[in-house]
């Protein structure tokens, strides 16, 4: 605490020492110190051949390759000399590039020969970019142990492979020839070969017809049928997929980084399709294709490639993917989640057609006993894949995005063989591998799923009109009222499904949804079961409660603690007890379910309640920017989904999962681990799907959580309170701002006004002017208010602001862009002025600078037509607006004040401005006049000194001084006119100076046609000295304005105009701010005008100092800061500054006992 906490009062203001003329203040400021950095010329690197080892090697490799190429053309294939047996113009090793390591049998030279002959390449030096296979006979133990480091992920193959390939006359899989040592590689082999089997079909068939053309492969991360897990298929053994690893690693890297730019990973790999020789693609033949792994193959030449290829093409042309996109691209859950939309689109006609028949069937329900069929594909995700791999049917197969046997990827579906091993959906791959080591893991094939799902539903819809889609592979059918036996229908459906899709389905038939569902479970796999109503009780009696839908772990644990394991046991519990324990709804449900009661009906169209996207995997942020980037993308995703559904939401919920304090590293790689969730929602007044709005709100909510971005593990964004976008569009007309505005606007500018307001609004919200999109505007709850306010202002004085007579030009420009912009005169200037300056600038751009004119004119609040602003050069107006804005006293935001203070910024703009001619540089032809002006300035300084030195003098004296400096010019024309008494008291040197300068002045006087000076109004002349000292500022508008107006100086006219336009209470600093564009005119003016301007400005500012020094130092300070700033471009203002500053400083020290940190600026020498 402050030890001197007693407040103290001085009895009097401290006596300040009186100050003499601030001659010591003329600290010369050396601007632009000549720090010319002697630019050392860059030592030009002479490109000597082989400047370093690297270039040497590059050159050598190039030569070797050229040699090899030359050899190849002469040796065999290029010359077309043979190998008819290969059936392949390019040789079986096309695309293969080997590197031989160590001693091999056959020797490396022989291998080279083979490569030469059969289209392969032979690398003398290893490079992981050019080599595809490493050939070696044996490896030392150290390399063996660290094979990956050695091979860089490339396959390390025995030389026998080359020989065998030659023997088979096709490229065999190198997998069996891989340098062994690790045993587990073998099981992997098989897996992976089968793995890409289905992919091979198209390309291999193709290979048969158009043999051996290049296949362009776009390794597009978005295409990867690989979830963002990132650890896809890491092979640990020396298996044939070592080369894949390389790709995988790249992809992994990509996914590891959330904001990775996947564009950079676009790889183009060329390889030859093996001469398939008419054989059904065997796993082996595919193995070299598996190199591409999970990547989709895009064959541009292959027209026979079906929709898979086509859709791939679409994907591959997409650019700029990002994590969110990739994530959802490769997410199975996302596929299922969004499937319904596609389903609805696809079967929309059937779904709507149902509506009409709804009533009929409902009647039927009363008559017939309800019968529901539940159809579910058997392990859909697996069986769709393995239908192309008949040999896998009886092997344990699972679908997962990652094949890393130690990975934590979750298996999404496993076939029944695998299930017998205990592999279930959700098991981590490593656990699955543990309980079933020979489990085959396959990746997703979403196109196939899509296709099968479509077939599946086509069949269902064919047989039944009431289909409730549960998922892509699961549906309820209401066959009540159908003539056929439900069981027959079910078997028909199942058979047809199997015929069409080559996948099996199971069906359960019962009286309600629940029982049908349960029946299916017991019917699986590939079966069907009918539970007649009389057998329900039996069926349920021993059914474990866990089997009931809607009972999860939590409920199950609760039930278990109450010793309820089966439905039979639950049957005994009274409804009230269940409701008490589990809540009314769940209790009810349990009570019903264990009795086999289910009141739900098959609902064809299900209302969508929410649209959203959530990512809980791979979320790691380093900083807020990352996070915002992610949010932006997530919003994009949600927005796209909303648009996809044709919906708009009003409530935006952001859910953030953050790491629980002390939570261990997540079990799952890049998983979310133990998290706590926070969520918050914001409801906006009008439904939106606009991405910018979503982003804004999402960021806002996110900020409100105050979470450490490093702790964030998952983010979800959901939109609820959905409305159809059509409805919300329509509703908008009724309640939106726009319509409200339009109703208050009367004239024909109505429409354009709306648009501008919309634009303004958009600008406020940072929207990139989505002109015609009504829904985008209404997000800005807060902005709306502001706008409402400003608009009401606008309404109240639209009449006043409509100044059509004033602006012919405006109207013309309006006509040019009539469709989009409101007329300038329709704009409410008050509103415009209150807008942030960048927006004003932007609008000004749109109006081609006329807006800033208008702004200044409007400040006049009159209807005078003006001519001066037309001279204002366009580009300058930008700064004008800024200045004007800062000046207009809207100091609501600190930023503006900074702007006003920020002297560094604006001048830069001005000097950059081509139109602002630096008057200092424009040589005045009349050198003499220039000199005299300079002298003049000096004399002005002297005059100020005089004033200061007389500060302590009597009032009378002061009056004298003002009369010398005021009404006439600053210096009397001759000594005779100078006040002798004043001169008397001047210091000797000053006196001498004045005497020395006077002849020059006389010359000026001579050349002046119109002597300029202020006539002190009689009323003022004899009033108190104080008023006399500041008479120029009397009246409204002040006296000087009239003087300036009638002045010869164009510059002064313009300033007077500025003042007149600005309104009566405008501060001088504001005017000074806006004079920038006028500065160029000063230099062009004649010397008389120049003198006049200098004198008059000096006078006005001096009197302004007198007027304001007691009450508003800030304003004076601002004025001087502006003058100082402009002094770099205008010598006139520099002189005005230098001539008035001493008075200012003197007044400061008189009244405030201190000085401002402003000093006289030395004029640039050698300029005149």
């Amino acid at each position: 605490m402050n030890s001197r906490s007693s407040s103290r009062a001085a009895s009097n203001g401290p006596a300040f020492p009186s100050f003499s003329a601030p001659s010591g203040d003329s600290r010369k400021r050396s601007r632009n110190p000549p720090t010319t950095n002697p630019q050392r010329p860059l030592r030009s690197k002479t490109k000597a051949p082989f400047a370093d080892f690297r270039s040497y090697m590059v050159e050598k490799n190039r030569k070797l390759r050229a040699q090899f190429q030359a050899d190849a053309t002469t040796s065999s294939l290029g010359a077309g000399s043979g190998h008819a047996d290969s059936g392949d113009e390019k040789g079986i090793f096309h695309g293969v590039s080997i590197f031989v390591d160590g001693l091999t049998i056959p020797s490396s030279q022989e291998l080279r020969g083979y490569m030469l002959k059969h289209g392969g390449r032979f690398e003398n030096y290893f490079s992981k970019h050019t080599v595809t296979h490493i050939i070696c006979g044996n490896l030392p133990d150290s390399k063996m142990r660290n094979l990956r480091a050695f091979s860089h992920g490339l396959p390390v193959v025995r030389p026998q492979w080359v020989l065998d390939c030659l023997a088979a006359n096709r490229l065999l899989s190198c997998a069996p020839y891989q340098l062994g040592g690790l045993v587990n590689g073998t099981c992997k082999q098989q897996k992976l070969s089968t793995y890409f089997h289905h992919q091979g079909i198209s390309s291999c068939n193709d290979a048969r017809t158009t043999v051996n053309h290049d296949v362009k492969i776009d390794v597009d991360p978005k295409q990867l049928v690989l979830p963002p897990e990132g650890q896809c298929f890491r092979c640990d053994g020396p298996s044939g997929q070592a080369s894949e690893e390389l790709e995988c690693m790249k992809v992994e890297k990509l996914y590891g980084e959330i904001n990775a730019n996947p564009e950079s990973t676009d790889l183009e790999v060329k390889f030859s399709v093996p001469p398939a020789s008419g054989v059904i693609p065997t796993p082996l033949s595919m193995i070299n294709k598996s190199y591409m792994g999970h990547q989709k193959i895009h064959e541009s030449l292959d027209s026979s490639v079906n929709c898979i290829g086509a859709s791939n093409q679409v994907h591959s042309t997409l650019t700029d993917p990002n994590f969110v996109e990739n994530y959802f691209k490769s997410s199975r859950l996302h596929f299922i989640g969004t499937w319904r939309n596609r389903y609805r689109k696809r079967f929309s006609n059937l779904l709507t057609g149902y509506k009409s028949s709804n009533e009929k069937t409902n009647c039927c329900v009363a008559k017939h006993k309800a019968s529901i069929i539940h159809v579910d594909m058997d392990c859909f995700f697996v069986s769709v894949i393995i239908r192309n791999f008949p040999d896998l049917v009886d092997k344990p197969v699972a679908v997962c995005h990652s094949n890393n046997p130690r990975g934590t990827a979750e298996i999404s579906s496993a076939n029944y063989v695998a299930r017998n091993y205990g592999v279930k959906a959700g098991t981590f791959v490593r656990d699955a591998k543990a309980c079933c080591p020979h489990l085959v893991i396959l990746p997703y094939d979403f196109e196939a799923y899509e296709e099968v799902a479509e077939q599946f539903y086509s069949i269902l819809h064919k047989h039944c009109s009431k289909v409730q889609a549960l998922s892509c592979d699961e549906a309820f059918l209401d066959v009540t009222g159908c003539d056929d036996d439900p069981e027959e229908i079910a078997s028909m459906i199942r058979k047809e499904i199997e015929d069409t899709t080559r996948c099996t389905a199971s069906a359960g038939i019962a009286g309600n949804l629940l029982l049908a569902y349960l029946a299916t479970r017991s019917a699986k796999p590939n079966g069907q079961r009918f539970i007649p109503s009389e057998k329900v009780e039996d069926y349920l009696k021993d059914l474990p409660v866990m089997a009931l839908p809607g009972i999860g772990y939590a409920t199950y644990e609760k039930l278990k603690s109450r010793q309820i394991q089966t439905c039979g046991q639950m049957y005994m519990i009274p409804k009230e007890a269940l409701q008490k324990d589990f809540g009314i709804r769940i209790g009810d449900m349990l009570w019903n379910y264990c009795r086999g009661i289910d009141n739900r009906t098959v609902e064809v169209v299900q209302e969508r309640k929410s649209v959203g996207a959530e990512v809980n995997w791979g979320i790691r942020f380093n900083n807020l920017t990352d996070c915002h980037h992610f949010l932006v993308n997530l919003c994009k995703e949600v927005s796209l989904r909303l648009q996809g559904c044709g919906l708009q939401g009003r409530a935006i919920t952001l859910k953030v999962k953050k790491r629980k304090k002390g939570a261990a590293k997540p079990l799952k790689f890049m998983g979310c681990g133990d998290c706590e969730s926070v969520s918050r929602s914001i409801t906006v007044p009008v439904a939106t799907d606009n991405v910018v709005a979503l982003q804004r709100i999402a960021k806002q909510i996110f900020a409100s959580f105050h979470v450490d971005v490093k702790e964030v593990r998952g983010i979800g964004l959901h939109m609820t309170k959905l409305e159809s976008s059509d409805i919300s569009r329509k509703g908008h007309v009724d309640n939106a701002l726009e319509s409200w505005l339009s109703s208050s606007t009367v004239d024909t500018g109505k429409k354009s006004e709306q648009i501008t307001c919309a634009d303004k609004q958009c600008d406020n919200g940072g929207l990139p002017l989505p002109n015609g999109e009504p829904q985008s505007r209404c997000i800005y709850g807060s902005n709306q208010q502001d706008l409402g306010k400003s608009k009401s202002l606008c309404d109240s004085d639209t009449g006043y602001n409509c100044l059509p007579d004033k602006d012919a030009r405006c109207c013309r420009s309006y006509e040019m862009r009539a469709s989009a912009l409101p007329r300038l005169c329709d704009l409410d200037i008050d509103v415009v002025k209150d807008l942030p300056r960048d927006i004003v600038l932007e609008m000004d751009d749109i109006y081609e600078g006329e807006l800033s004119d208008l702004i200044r004119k409007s400040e006049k609040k009159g209807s005078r037509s003006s001519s001066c602003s037309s001279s204002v050069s366009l580009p300058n107006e930008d700064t004008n607006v800024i200045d004007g804005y800062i000046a207009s006293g809207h100091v609501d935001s600190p930023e503006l004040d900074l702007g006003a203070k920020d002297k560094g910024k604006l001048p830069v703009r001005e000097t950059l401005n081509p139109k602002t001619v630096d008057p200092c540089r424009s040589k005045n032809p009349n050198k003499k006049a220039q000199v005299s002006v300079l002298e003049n300035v000096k004399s002005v300084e002297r005059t100020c000194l005089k004033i200061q030195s007389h500060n302590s003098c009597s009032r009378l004296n002061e009056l004298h001084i003002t009369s010398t400096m005021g009404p006439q010019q600053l210096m009397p024309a001759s000594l005779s006119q100078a006040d002798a008494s004043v001169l008397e008291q001047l210091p000797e040197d000053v006196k001498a100076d004045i005497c020395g300068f006077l002849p020059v002045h006389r010359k000026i006087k001579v050349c002046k046609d119109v002597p300029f000076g202020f006539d002190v109004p009689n009323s003022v002349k004899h009033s108190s000295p104080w008023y006399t000292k500041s008479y120029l500022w009397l009246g409204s508008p002040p006296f000087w304005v009239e003087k300036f107006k009638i002045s010869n100086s164009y510059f002064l006219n313009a300033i007077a105009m500025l003042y007149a336009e600005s309104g009566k209470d405008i501060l001088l600093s504001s005017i000074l701010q806006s004079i920038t564009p006028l500065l160029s005119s000063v230099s062009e003016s004649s010397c008389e005008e120049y003198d006049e301007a200098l004198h008059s400005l000096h006078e006005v500012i001096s009197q302004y100092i007198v007027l304001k020094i007691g009450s508003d130092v800030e304003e004076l300070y601002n004025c001087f800061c502006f003058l100082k700033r402009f002094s770099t471009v205008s010598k006139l203002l520099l002189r005005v500054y230098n001539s008035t500053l001493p008075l200012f400083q003197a007044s400061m020290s008189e009244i405030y006992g201190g000085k401002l940190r402003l000093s006289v600026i030395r004029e640039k020498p050698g300029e005149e």
Partner: protein
Amino acid sequence: MDRKNTSPQGETARVLVEFLEVAITSIVFLKGFYPSEAFERRRYMNVVVHRARHPQLSGYIHSVTAGLLPFVQKGLVERVNVIFYDNEHVPVEKFIFKIIVNQSYNSKVEENDLEFALRAFLIKLTIAEPLTKPLPSGSSWEVTAYFRALPQDSSNKEARMWVPTDTKQWLQPPDITPIKSMSSEPLKVQLYLEHPNPSEPKNLGV
């Protein structure tokens, strides 16, 4: 505050004194004299300001400003200085509120205008930090007020709260940096900074 005091000057003084309390706290916060935890964010005149949480600190500022009230009302207070001293109790920086209360003003005070004008000070203060100089270690601060005349009735309890200051003066005229000025009848307030002239002898011959 005495609400019944409805003379324009009284009204003005009340607003001003309240404002000064906030502004002085803002200055102390701005200078970082105390750790920022010693302050809490508050809203005053619709501006985010900081309020001292330490009872002693807020008490000091409150008592100082409240003690000014009668004098401000009479137009006796010329300046209120917030002075920061170095370890030798030589002022290194002064924030000066120069106050003029028009005693002859008789119309009604537009409190809104007044607050609007004063609010600009608070806004400006929040961004005035770059204008100030960093405090040396071992610094202290205090509030002093310069009166136009000594309080007439020195028996007055309020007047006795004020003791003559022994603040060292600068020998050279200080450098002034205006921060904000306002004029809203009957009140004129100017805030500016004073720094010692660069030519100021460092040790005042002490």
